[in-house]
């Protein structure tokens, strides 16, 4: 499963940086089963290292994890056929990788509710086990890796690697460019508020661009029918 190549180093880095930031080993391992979301864990660990208030740490983790909302929205039609108990279990296992592999499978092949549940849980359990084992390995071995190897550099590298998998078109590129620049420019703010403001401005600008493009498209269509819509006048005024 090539997906595990993305999970194992992530778990390892998460475990190693958690211990490095002074989080006790057992809690570092527990964190991986409680949160089960690498990027949010890495962001939280970094903030913990800076002694940020708990509220800021949680808020940052929530924003980093907002993408799960999108995943669950798009996979929900397939989950609806499961019983409520299974849905709770399946929701826990909804990671980037599980989502990607399951949705692709559900869209391309028709499944009975049971076979899709088996497929989904198979992927989720595999990823969960790999992630927990690699976190534990990171906690145990990571502390012994000399600092000259700059293992911490693997964290931004992971974000870069993931970034290019989610950039799909011009609007997502703009979201990334804006968020990155604002993140740097507001980096003087305490406790990674630069991250929050960068991400929020990036999403806002991309949404605005997408909306004005949609309005432009629809007003073109409608004006072809010689009917001037309100949206067009609003756009001309702005």
């Amino acid at each position: 499963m090539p997906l595990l190549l993305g999970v194992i180093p992530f778990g390892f880095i998460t475990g190693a940086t958690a211990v490095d930031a002074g989080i006790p080993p057992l809690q570092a391992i527990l964190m991986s089963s409680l949160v089960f979301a690498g990027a949010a864990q890495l962001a939280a660990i970094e903030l913990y290292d800076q002694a940020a208030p708990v509220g800021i740490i949680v808020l940052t983790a929530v924003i980093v994890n907002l993408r799960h909302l999108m995943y669950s929205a798009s996979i929900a039609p397939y989950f609806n056929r499961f019983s409520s108990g299974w849905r709770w279990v399946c929701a826990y296992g909804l990671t980037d990788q599980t989502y990607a592999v399951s949705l692709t499978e559900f869209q391309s092949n028709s499944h009975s509710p049971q076979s899709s549940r088996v497929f989904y849980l198979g992927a989720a359990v595999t990823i969960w086990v790999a992630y927990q084992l690699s976190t534990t390995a990171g906690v145990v071995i990571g502390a012994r890796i000399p600092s000259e190897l700059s293992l911490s550099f693997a964290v931004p590298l992971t974000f870069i690697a993931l970034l290019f998998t989610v950039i799909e078109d011009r609007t997502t590129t703009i979201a990334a460019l804006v968020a990155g620049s604002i993140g740097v420019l507001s980096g003087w703010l305490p406790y990674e508020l630069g991250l929050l403001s960068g991400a929020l401005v990036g999403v806002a600008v991309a949404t605005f661009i997408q909306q004005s493009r949609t309005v432009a498209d629809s007003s073109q269509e409608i004006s072809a029918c010689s009917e001037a819509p309100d949206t067009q006048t609003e756009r001309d005024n702005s």
Partner: protein
Amino acid sequence: MLIAIGVATYALRMSFVFLFEWLDTVPTQIEKSLRFVPPAVLAALAVPALVTLSTDPVAGFVFDSDRVVAATVAAIVAWQTERVFLTIVVGMVALWGLQVV
């Protein structure tokens, strides 16, 4: 403090499970905006980890050129291959190579 984080992160996970239960009502506009969350968040995590703004003594950017070069190499690999593991390996090897030189 640590227990508080543990509980808070657990609450975070549960909140997604809860949101998942009434998903049918997620408005389309929010769903559209959510598409931009991953690229925005990942860029806001990655770029400031490499370059920071400083005002002391004069305004300017602070960065470690080895790390920026290694990250650029990794970014090219990520862009061309979209492979996470390969990107991390190439970036780390590039950084080690530059540090030795």
